């Protein structure tokens, strides 16, 4: 079991003929993900890797192949449009990997995605990897392992670092989910935590936050009120100077709020251990998790 995906996940890749889209589609297929279609306007009728049909529009891809999930690798200028196209075509899960999407575009796309009833992950995220089930995005398959731990993170490689440590410690994962580092993202910590809490296969989970916004504080309040499963957290950016964007568009301490210290305080007040170092996450999890 996993969150958001299952064995019926049928993927259309938007931007499959691009360099990154093509590379990661091969990786997804190599992991066994059912990539049933690609979409690039003007490339309709071609085959990707000799087997995956490419369509001009997502609507065609959905109609012809029964795709229900889109993974998006299109350039930033068209990314929000691609999200809306996927939602309009009936995809119920949309994972947007694209980095650098204008925020105003996401503000416009969000109510559309909601009206169409789709779940959006990202943009500017590594996507999701449910070991043994499906890989949607760019998370490296080599570091994951099937198991009972859920992981949700605003980051990319920091997530890999933590997954690597979990796997090394023998703690496999139900789903590793990168929700992205932009100010406006689809699925947020709260949504992911609700899903992990409801997923019977997930016995414990890890939340990797960072500076900016108050999503971690909101998650803490939710966990305190609703979650009985063991949770450990880590917050990146304790030493980030205020007013500076730390790579991710959303990672910024502004007007004195969104600091790592505030987040740590809120999490600890909710009874969630916060690791000081990435290497402390696994030990802390083992400490509170009576298996």
């Amino acid at each position, binding site marked *: 079991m996993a969150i958001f995906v299952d064995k019926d996940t049928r993927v259309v890749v938007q931007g499959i003929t691009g360099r990154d889209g093509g590379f*990661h589609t091969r*990786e997804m297929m190599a992991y066994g993900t059912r990539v049933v279609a690609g979409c690039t306007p003007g490339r309709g009728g071609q085959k990707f890797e000799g087997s995956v049909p490419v369509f001009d529009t997502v609507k065609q891809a959905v109609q012809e192949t029964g795709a229900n999930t889109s993974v998006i690798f299109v350039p*930033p*200028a068209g990314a929000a449009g691609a999200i809306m196209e996927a939602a309009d075509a009936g995809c119920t899960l949309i994972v947007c990997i694209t980095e*650098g*999407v*204008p*925020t*105003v*575009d*996401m*503000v*416009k796309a*969000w*109510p559309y995605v909601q009206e169409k009833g789709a779940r959006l992950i990202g943009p500017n995220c590594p996507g999701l990897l449910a070991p043994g089930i499906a890989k949607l995005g*760019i*998370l*490296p398959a*080599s*570091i994951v392992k099937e198991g009972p731990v859920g992981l949700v993170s*605003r*980051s*990319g*490689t*920091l*997530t*890999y*670092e933590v997954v*690597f440590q979990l796997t090394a410690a023998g703690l496999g994962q139900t789903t590793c989910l990168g929700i992205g*580092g932009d*100010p*406006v993202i689809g699925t947020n910590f709260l949504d992911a935590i609700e899903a992990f809490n409801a997923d019977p296969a997930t016995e414990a989970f890890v939340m*990797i936050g*960072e*500076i900016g*916004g*108050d*999503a971690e504080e*909101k998650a803490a309040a939710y966990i305190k009120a609703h979650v009985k499963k063991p949770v450990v957290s880590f917050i*990146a*950016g*304790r*030493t*980030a*100077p205020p007013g*500076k*964007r*730390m*790579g*991710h*568009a*959303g*990672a910024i301490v502004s*007007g*004195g709020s969104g600091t*790592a210290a505030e987040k740590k305080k809120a999490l600890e007040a909710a009874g969630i251990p916060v690791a*000081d*170092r*990435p*290497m402390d996450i696994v030990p802390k999890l083992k400490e509170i998790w009576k298996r």
Partner: protein
Amino acid sequence: MNIHEYQAKEIFASHGLPVPGGKVATTVDEAVALANGFGLPCMVKSQVLTGGRGKAGGIKFCPTIDDVRKHAGNILGMDIKGHIVRKVLVTPAVDIASEYYVGMLIDRNTKRVLLMASAEGGVEIEQVAKENPDAILKQSIDPRYGLLDHEAMDMGLRLCPEDVKKARQLAAAMQKLYRAFVEADASLAEINPFIFTPDGTGHAIDAKVNLDDNALFRHPGYEALRDLEAEDPGERAAREAGLSFVKLSGNVGCLVNGAGLAMATMDLVNYYGGQPANFLDIGGSSNPEKVVNALTIILEDPEVKAILFNIFGGITRCDDVANGIIKATQMMDINVPIVVRLTGTNEAEGRALLAKTALHPAQTMDEAVQKAIELAGK
């Protein structure tokens, strides 16, 4: 991207907001000439990308040309929180009967633009938020409809219940500000204060706009708004090289793939008693040129005594990354120690390559960070 008051006002004016006339001077003589043109009294306002200009003496009321000469002279070259004043805005002074705050920003929770307004204008909104949060009115803007007439008017009437004409001006200003925000792809837009003169006319006398870096590609004209002189040279070079870089004051230069891991690396340097010299995300590529650019930027800082690579090879293979680092270091003349931590796909092969060089390999983040701090202290 942060822009100056005078630039923000140009954007506002193009959307019909009532902005007083004004022009920028870089010398005292230019300021005097502008003041003569606009007439007296006027304001001389430092143009720096930081708040608190008034408190620092960077904004002055000038009833006479002698005042313009004196204050422009003092302000030009002034250091305000580390920002050197290179330009002043000369603008006609207006009589202020009342002041309001009107601002917009992206609200991450609602995923919308949030309008905030307050009758406590002219002071920093963060201060109002702390001391008197109820004084800040809020309206979440549905992007499908924009800021509707009745929403804006409701805000205007709550700010100014005694005068419907002023309420209408505030409402109109909010609607124009929203259009400016969306069309300019802002991440923050503030009028602080929006004032009324004693005759009841509204003016946006101060302006602040931050632009969304992700959207600059569709506003080719905005690149010209960037104040290159106000930018840290390293940050400027990094931006031009497509790297995400923030200058800090420590001595351990950090090169990391991924923003979250880069922050975590800085934090770990700090945890072990060291001081990171920077934040730098070199991205997922193993391109030696990118590594050269990154190293060049970091080594411009004479404080840097050691360099720390922290690379998690996920999709990128560690041996490729190692080759990139080796090539880059060979192309340069580097005389500080370099610690390289490589983990992930083809980790062993990567470390084998490094073993043949003068680079200091490390297996874990903790080991690498501790080694870099130790080498920097030597």
